[in-house]
C-alpha cells in the first residue's frame, strides 16, 4: 500500500503537487522554501475532502480545529469564513500550517490517506492564514473585562496561545518576555526559510490586538520579583526548554563550537547572516559538522549551508530513527547536506580553533527505553572529518532560572515543572504548559497543552 501514498501516485488523482523552490536556488537566500498553494490549488485540494461525519483529522489535531468546516469554506471559495472557523480553535494558523508535523497528526489519520494521499490540511490552513494576513485580519470577539489579572511568562507558542485564549475571555493579560522580540522558538529558533519572521510578527500582533500586553526585556525572577509575579490572580509559566545540552567531550570549548541555540539565535534573531549591516557576527566556515538528528539539527545544518558551508550531519542512530520531520530530512538532503548516520563524536580537534572532529561508528542494538534501537560504539572504527565549525544540536532542557526561584513549585528530575492534566502546578494559582512541562517537544503540542491550561485558568478565575 505504501506506493499508493506517494506524491506521485497521488498527483495522478488530483492531489496538488508540492510547492518547494528548487534546492540550488533556495540555498542562496533565507527566503521560504515552500511557496504555498495558489488560490486554485487550495480550492481544488479542499474539494477532495470527503467531509467525514466523524472526522478523524479533528481528533488528530492537538488544538482540535474543526478541520472539515474550514476546508468546506475553502472549497467554496469563502476564505473569510474559513479564517473565522480556523481561529475559533487556533490563533496561530499561519505558523501551525507551516511547522506542525501534520503527517503524524491531522493528515496522518485522514481517511484519504488509506486510498491515495491525505488532504494537505497544513497547506490549506497556511493558505487561509496567508490570505487573511494579505487581506486584513478579522479579530475574534473579546469578552467583557473581568478585572482579573493574569501573568504569562514567556512569549513562545504556549505563552501566546494562553495569552490569546485568556485575553479573549476578558482577563487582563500581561506577557513577560526576556528577549527583545516575542515568539520564543518561533523567532530565535526556526529559520526564516521554514517560518518567515513577518508571518510570526503578524500572528503575534493579532494576539496583542486582543488586548494582551507584552513586556519585552523582562526576565521574570530578575526584572520582576517572584512575589510580584505571584501577586497576579493567575500565573502561567511557559518558559520553554531553552537550556542547551553539550556532549561533554574534549574540545567542546574550542573557538568554532556552537550550541544550535547560539548559532540559530545569532542568525534568526540577530540577523548575523547580514553582518556587517547588522552588528552581530557569526563565524563563517568552509566545512561544518552538525551533531544531532532532530528538527533543530536540520535547521542548523541548512542555515550553515546558506552561509556557504559544506555541511556534514552526524547522527548516532540510523536515518529511520531521526526525530526530525521527514520533509526536513528530505529538504536537507536536497540542499546537499551530507549525512553520517550511526556515528558519534568522541572529541573535537584543534588548538584554539576547531580543525576536525573525531567520530566513532555505532552499531544499532536492542530496543531501548525510548522504543528505538540503542546505539553502541564499534571499537576501532574511529574516523576524522576535517571541519572548521561544530554545531551541537543534541537537545535542550527546561531553563532552571525562574522555576528554581519559586518556592514550593514541584519539579521533576530534569527540571521540568510537574502539572496535572489541566496544567495546574503544586501552587494553586500557578499553571504551566509547553516545553517547561514536557521538555523539548513540538510547537503544536505546546499550544495544545496551553489551551487546556488556559481553559482551567479561566474556569478558576470565574470561580467555576
Amino acid at each position, binding site marked *: 500500500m505504501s506506493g499508493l501514498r506517494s506524491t506521485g501516485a497521488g498527483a495522478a488523482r488530483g492531489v496538488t503537487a508540492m510547492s518547494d523552490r528548487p534546492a540550488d536556488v533556495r540555498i542562496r537566500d533565507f527566503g521560504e522554501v515552500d511557496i504555498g498553494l495558489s488560490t486554485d490549488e487550495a480550492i481544488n485540494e479542499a474539494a477532495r475532502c470527503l467531509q467525514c461525519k466523524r472526522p478523524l483529522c479533528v481528533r488528530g489535531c492537538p488544538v482540535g480545529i474543526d478541520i472539515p468546516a474550514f476546508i468546506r469554506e475553502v472549497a467554496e471559495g469563502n476564505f473569510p469564513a474559513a479564517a473565522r472557523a480556523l481561529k475559533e480553535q487556533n490563533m496561530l494558523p499561519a505558523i501551525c500550517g507551516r511547522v506542525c508535523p501534520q503527517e503524524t497528526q491531522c493528515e496522518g489519520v485522514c481517511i484519504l490517506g488509506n486510498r491515495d494521499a491525505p488532504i494537505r490540511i497544513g497547506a490549506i490552513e497556511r493558505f487561509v492564514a496567508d490570505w487573511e494576513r494579505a487581506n486584513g485580519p478579522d479579530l475574534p470577539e473579546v469578552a467583557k473585562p473581568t478585572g482579573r489579572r493574569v501573568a504569562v511568562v514567556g512569549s513562545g507558542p504556549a505563552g501566546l496561545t494562553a495569552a490569546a485564549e485568556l485575553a479573549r475571555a476578558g482577563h487582563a493579560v500581561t506577557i513577560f518576555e*526576556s*528577549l*527583545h522580540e516575542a515568539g520564543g522558538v518561533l523567532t530565535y529558533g526556526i529559520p526564516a526559510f521554514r517560518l518567515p519572521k513577518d508571518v510570526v510578527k503578524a500572528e503575534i500582533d493579532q494576539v496583542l490586538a486582543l488586548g494582551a500586553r507584552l*513586556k*519585552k*526585556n*523582562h*526576565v521574570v525572577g*530578575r*526584572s*520582576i*520579583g517572584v512575589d510580584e509575579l505571584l501577586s497576579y490572580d493567575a500565573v502561567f509559566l511557559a518558559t520553554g526548554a*531553552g*537550556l*542547551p545540552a*553539550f556532549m*561533554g567531550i574534549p574540545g*567542546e*570549548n574550542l*573557538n*568554532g563550537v556552537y*550550541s544550535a*541555540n*547560539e548559532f540559530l*539565535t*545569532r542568525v534568526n534573531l*540577530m*540577523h548575523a547572516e547580514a*553582518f*556587517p*549591516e*547588522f*552588528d*552581530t*557576527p557569526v*563565524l563563517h566556515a568552509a566545512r561544518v559538522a552538525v551533531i544531532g538528528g532532530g528538527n533543530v539539527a536540520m535547521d542548523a545544518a541548512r542555515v550553515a549551508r546558506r552561509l556557504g558551508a559544506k555541511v556534514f550531519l552526524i547522527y548516532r542512530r540510523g536515518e529511520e530513527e531521526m526525530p526530525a520531520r521527514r520533509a526536513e530530512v528530505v529538504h536537507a538532503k536536497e540542499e546537499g547536506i551530507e549525512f553520517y548516520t550511526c556515528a558519534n563524536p568522541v572529541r573535537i580537534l584543534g588548538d*584554539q580553533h576547531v580543525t576536525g572532529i573525531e567520530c566513532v561508528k555505532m552499531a544499532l542494538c536492542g530496543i531501548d527505553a525510548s522504543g528505538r534501537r540503542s546505539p553502541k560504539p564499534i571499537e576501532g572504527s574511529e574516523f576524522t572529518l576535517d571541519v572548521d565549525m561544530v554545531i551541537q544540536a543534541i537537545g535542550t532542557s527546561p*531553563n*532552571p*532560572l525562574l522555576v528554581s526561584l519559586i518556592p514550593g513549585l514541584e519539579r521533576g528530575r530534569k527540571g521540568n515543572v510537574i502539572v496535572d492534566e489541566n496544567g495546574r502546578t503544586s501552587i494553586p494559582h500557578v499553571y504551566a504548559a509547553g516545553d517547561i512541562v514536557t521538555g523539548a517537544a513540538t510547537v503544536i503540542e505546546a499550544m495544545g497543552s496551553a489551551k487546556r491550561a488556559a481553559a482551567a485558568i479561566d474556569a478558576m478565575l470565574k470561580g467555576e
Partner: protein
Amino acid sequence: MYKIEKATKLADRVYEFWIRAPHVAQHARAGQFLILRLHEAGERIPLTISAVREDAVRVIFMTVGKTTEELATLRAGDRITDVVGPLGKPSEIANYGTCCVIGGGVGIASTPPIAKELKDAGNHVIGIIGARSADLLILEDEMREICDELYITTDDGSKGVHGFASDVLKKLLEERTLDRVWIIGPAIMMKVTSGVTVPYNVKTYVSLNPIMVDGTGMCGSCRVTVGGETKFACVDGPEFDAHQVDFNELMQRQRIYTAQEKVSLERFAEHRCRCGEGGHRHE
C-alpha cells in the same frame, strides 16, 4: 525605548551613562549586569550595573569596538532600543571580616556596588583601584567614600603606587589576614592578580567577561570552565571562584570574533567620517 538621562566622559575612551530602566534599577544587586541593544540592527552587549539611582542605572564603558563607539556618540535625551536586566547572580555578600575589592581599568566600574554592600554587611573594606595612568583612573572619590582604606596603583607611576594592584594585594596579604577578595578587570589582570591569593588560601572571586548573546542561559556563548566543569557565566556567574577558573580558555574564547569586530568597527568609523563627527544616529 530607554532614555539616556546623563552621559559624561570620564577619561580617554571611558564614558559614564545613566539610563532610565526602572525594571532593572528596582531589582539590581551588586555583581549583576544588564544587556543593551542600541537599535534594530544592533548587537546585544553586556555591561555591569555600576550604580542605581531611583529608576535609573549607571553603566561605565570603554570604547573598544563598534557598539561601544556608537554608544559613545549618544547624548542625554537619546534613547536605546533595549535594556534587559538585572542579569547574573548577585555577589555573595556576608559579614566575612576583612574584604578586599580590586578593580582594574574600566573594571573599577564594578567595584562600588560590591564594596558598598560588603560595607553595609559589616565588613572592613579595603579597595584597590588600578589603571595604566592617573588620567585613566575612575571613581576614586566614590570608592574613597565607601571603603575603609583605598589604595591606588598606576602602571606608569603617575599616581599612587607605581605598579599593579597585585603588588599591593601581595603586600596586604603579607601583613594581615584577608577573608575574601574580589577582582574585576581584564581577564589577564584577573588571572595574574588572583594568583597572588592562592598560597594564602583566601577565597577570591572574579567577575568573568566572556562573549554573551542572550544573557539568560539559552545559548552557552558565555560558557567557561570552572573547576573542570562547564558553566554559563550569564546565569551561573558572572562571579566565580578565581582559583577554579580556566583563564586561558576564557581569553581564547574572547578572541572568537576578532576579525569580524575589526570589519564592523572600520565600517562604522568610515561611515562616521562621511556623516561628520558625532552625526551617526539611528532613530
